[in-house]
Structure formats: structure tokens, C-alpha cells
């Protein structure tokens, strides 16, 4: 990890609330894995004060670029929309521990909500590269927010969309879909990101079937490198519950071990 000056190649609005940014990652000579994140300085001056953490949405190893998909939320992400191609931005990372696809997982289910889709997209990409069959349930407020579905489909993933707009995103329906897809596709591992409610659902469902899985968590951060203990969450360990750092031991954790509140 390092604070890299990366050149913005493109930064465009892709839907009402989402933006997509591609940066040149040639100078990063460390390995980057799906599920890791970068802490981005969103403005040149003092505003916003802290960096903002973003997962990697796509890693293009040949063309040496990485991509981010971000939701415009507050001051930091509003500033980010002002990045222009050609500009060098200050991107700190790669940070944390990403997903790990075990050899035996030949068929995986992803359950993502909202901007959690950005995080799981990189995993779908990796699955495609490793010829792992990938099925994804993507949940969002509206179809407009589900633009990343095509990216996942591009990677060969089977995508099921649920939204408030269509009245399909309620817990019951998602539970039904999860059960159905677990069966239909002989799922070996489950992954989730973006919603506490859906994560609990996935945790229970996977546990019932004895299926392993991983979850990517979000927490407000200070240092993003593990020194300040701002970003903790609880995980079950051999000796009881441990408080661990999302930025350092995570953001990806074993689904079965995380204490979801």
C-alpha cells in the first residue's frame, strides 16, 4: 500500500445517483485483489478532511487500469464527481484483505444491495477468470440503480434483479430466490455485501445448508491501515468474540464468523 498519484482516465455519471471512474494503475506494482479497497482523497485542499474508502469495482490487469463505481452521497463523493480525465488523484491502497475463491468452489452465489454491487462485481470478474459459475441477486431501490448488472452479465454471471420499484426486493422474496438459486445451481459458496438485513438472511441461509461464504463490511474509518481502531466489528474466534478491524483484518470476513447486528 502507498499513496499513489493516479491519472483519471474517465469519470462519468452512469445513472441518477451513481458515477463510474477509471484510473491508470500502471505505477501500482503490488497485487490487487477483489474485495480490497482504496482510500481516496476527494479534494485537493482541506475539504473534505478525511479520505473516503472505495472497493475496487474492476481490475483490468492487461490495460493496467482499475475502476470504481460510487454512489454520490455526501461532501466526499460530490467532490469526486469533479475529477476530470487527465487529473492526477491521490489514491491510497490497496488496503485490507479481499475475497478468496477456494479451488473447490465451482459455483457461487452473490447477494448484493445498492453500492455493495460495486464490491461484488470485482469478485464476479475473478470468478469468470477462474471459470467459476457465478449467480447474483442484485437488490436496489430502482432499476436505474442496477446498472452494474450488465457488468456482471458481461462476466457471464446469471443475474436476478430485485427492486423496491418492482416490489420484488422484500425479504421474503429474496429469501425465496436465495433458497431456489442455492438448489438450482448447486452453490458451493455464498457472498454478500451492502445490506445488514440481506447479510443476516444470507448468513442464516448459508449456515442452514452448511455452505461457507464471505461478507464485505463497511465501517467509518480513520487511518484505514489498522492503527486507530476506528473501524472495528465483532467476529467469532476460537476463544470467543473478538473485535477486529474492518480495514485490516477485513473488509472481507468469513460469513459464518461475523457477528451481524
Amino acid at each position, binding site marked *: 500500500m502507498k499513496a499513489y498519484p493516479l491519472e483519471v482516465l474517465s469519470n462519468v455519471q452512469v445513472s441518477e445517483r451513481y458515477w463510474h471512474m477509471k484510473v491508470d494503475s500502471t505505477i501500482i506494482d503490488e497485487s490487487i485483489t477483489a474485495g480490497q479497497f482504496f482510500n481516496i482523497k476527494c479534494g485537493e485542499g482541506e475539504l473534505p478532511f478525511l479520505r473516503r474508502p472505495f472497493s475496487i469495482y474492476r481490475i483490468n490487469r492487461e490495460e493496467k487500469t482499475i475502476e470504481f463505481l460510487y454512489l454520490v452521497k455526501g461532501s466526499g463523493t460530490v467532490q469526486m464527481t469533479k475529477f476530470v480525465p487527465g487529473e492526477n488523484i491521490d489514491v491510497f491502497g490497496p488496503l485490507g484483505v479481499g475475497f478468496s475463491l477456494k479451488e473447490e468452489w465451482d459455483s457461487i452465489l452473490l447477494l448484493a444491495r445498492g453500492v455493495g454491487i460495486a464490491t461484488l462485481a470485482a469478485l464476479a470478474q475473478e470468478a469468470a477468470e477462474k471459470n467459476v459459475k457465478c449467480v447474483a441477486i442484485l437488490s436496489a431501490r430502482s432499476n436505474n440503480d442496477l446498472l452494474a448488472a450488465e457488468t456482471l452479465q458481461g462476466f457471464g454471471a446469471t443475474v436476478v434483479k430485485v427492486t423496491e420499484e418492482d416490489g420484488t426486493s422484500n425479504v421474503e422474496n429474496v429469501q425465496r430466490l436465495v433458497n431456489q438459486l442455492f438448489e438450482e445451481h448447486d452453490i458451493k459458496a455464498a457472498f454478500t455485501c451492502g445490506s445488514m438485513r440481506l447479510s443476516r438472511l444470507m448468513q442464516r441461509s448459508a449456515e442452514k445448508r452448511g455452505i461457507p461464504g464471505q461478507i464485505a463490511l463497511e465501517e467509518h*474509518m480513520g487511518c484505514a491501515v489498522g492503527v486507530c481502531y476506528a473501524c472495528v466489528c465483532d467476529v467469532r474466534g476460537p476463544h470467543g468474540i473478538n*473485535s477486529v478491524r474492518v480495514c485490516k483484518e477485513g473488509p472481507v470476513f468469513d460469513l459464518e464468523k461475523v457477528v451481524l447486528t
Partner: protein
Amino acid sequence: MTKNLKLDVKIGSLHMKNPVMPASGAFGFEMASLFDFNELGALVPKSITKYPRGGNDTPRVCEVTGGMINSIGIQSKGLPYYMEHIIPEYAKYDVPLIASISADSIEEFAEMSEIIGKDPAVSAIELNISCPNLEGDGKAFGMDGDLSFELIQKVKGVTDQPLIAKLTPNVTSIQEIAIACEEAGADGLNVANTILAMAIDIHTRKPKIGNVMGGISGPAIKPIIVRMIHQVRNVSTLPIIGCGGIMNSDDAIEMILAGASAVQVGTANFINPLSMIEVLEGIKEYMVEYNISDINNLVGKVNIPSSTTTLY
């Protein structure tokens, strides 16, 4: 040219090759890959408590104008783990280690200092007297001159290590506390810890920090800290470590001019991981520009007009 600059500073018997070090809680060996720790004046790990502690509810940090509020709650693995695993990790570097201690009672401060003080890898102890006195009224030790005196004196009796009292800025008169610490035998004063603050999300109507209140750090508090350094400098001869809101070398020099012999950089590390190195480089450049050969000649050299009233 920068070769001939004298940058070394002393706090009691603690000798540092330069005045730049991290602030406790905003530094750790997870940063070792980012720059060479051997470049620093000293290393200051996160405050340690006697027993393991879980820390506070999340969110533990939030952003405010010109800074952040934190309420970590001193998450700690306890003293034995610290002695066995953390100190040795820092002992690898050729830089003095300042151990920061938080405790719930004066006895605990003394007990911990005695143990830590015996470790040859430790070069000084920073007493985080900004933490609450659980046996008293829950106010920080450093909010009360008598308690601060008693605390430092007790610790002084059990260890020969140089003692740095880390003051809390949440007081009516930082001078009074500084004097109490000096009289009790402190070797240096850290001015200061964070300022107690609170932020509310007006939409959820919940505090933005899980623990409701926390300490504000960052440039927003710098002018308050600079004022306190200047005030302490006027009443005490102890070396001062300036801490609070340093983002760059200009800020560090401002604190040195106000009266600080050394500086600690905290929150800035989160924004620019090379902050400390850049602060040090900037200090050197300033010294060259203004032909200052010894950093100690800058300490407290703010030019106060003689006509100034002493009442503010």
C-alpha cells in the same frame, strides 16, 4: 547545508535526534511499510491500559469541519501483551520509544509505569492524564491540578524514566495544570490531547459517534492548542511537545515558535501517510531559509509586541 542543522532536542534524559514524532493512537507498526521509522525523533505507540479493553461502540470516528471526532475508548490488549509483543516490535528501530499509558487510577498509573519503566527498550513514558479518573468523579485527572500533581509525583517515585504529562485542553487554566505537573517532577509536557466535542446527525437525530461524545483533532483545534502552548511556555520551563492539528511543517513551526520543543503528528497521518517525514523536511527547509542552525533557537521565539495587554 541541511547537514549542519542541529535538530536534536531533549526532554529530561530523553534525547531525540529531531523534534518530529507521532501522536499516540494515530500511529502503529502497520505503517512501517510506508516510510522509514528510523527517520523519526521518537516512536509513540497507542496508549496501553493494564487490562484488555474492548473499546466503544461504533461509529468511533466522524468528520467535522477541519477535523474529526474520535471516541475509540482505548481498545487495548492489556499490559502483558504490550510488554511481550508490542514493545519488542518497536524496539527494532534505532529511535527512542515513548510508551503512552492510560489508567483508571493513580495507583494503576504507578503500577504500570513501574513495569514499563524497567523495560530497557523504553526511553520515556507519556502519561495520558486526559483519561477519566474512575475512582473519583469520572473527570479526567488532568482537569484537576491536585490530582495531576499526585499522579505525577507517585509515578516519579517508582521509575527513573523521563515522564511526559499529556495534558487535556478541556480546562479553564492549562497553566495551572502545567505548573502542578512541573512541581510534581514531570520532565516534559504534551500540549495537548483532543478537545471534547459532539456532532448530531439531524436526520437520524442520533449522535454521529457511538459513544455520544469524543475528542476533536485536526486543524480546527490548532489555534486553541497554539494558544495553550504559548500560555504554558509563559509559566513553565519544561520542554513542551506541541500536538493538535499539525498538517504540515508550517503548523509545526508555528507551535515551535509558540514554545514547543518537539511536535506530535496525529490525524494528518490518516490523510497523508508521509506527513511526519514532510513535516521534518519542511522544518529543515525553514531553518535553512532563515539561517537557523539549531532548532532550539526557534523555540518560543514568537515576537510579542511589548504593548500587549495581558488580558484576553
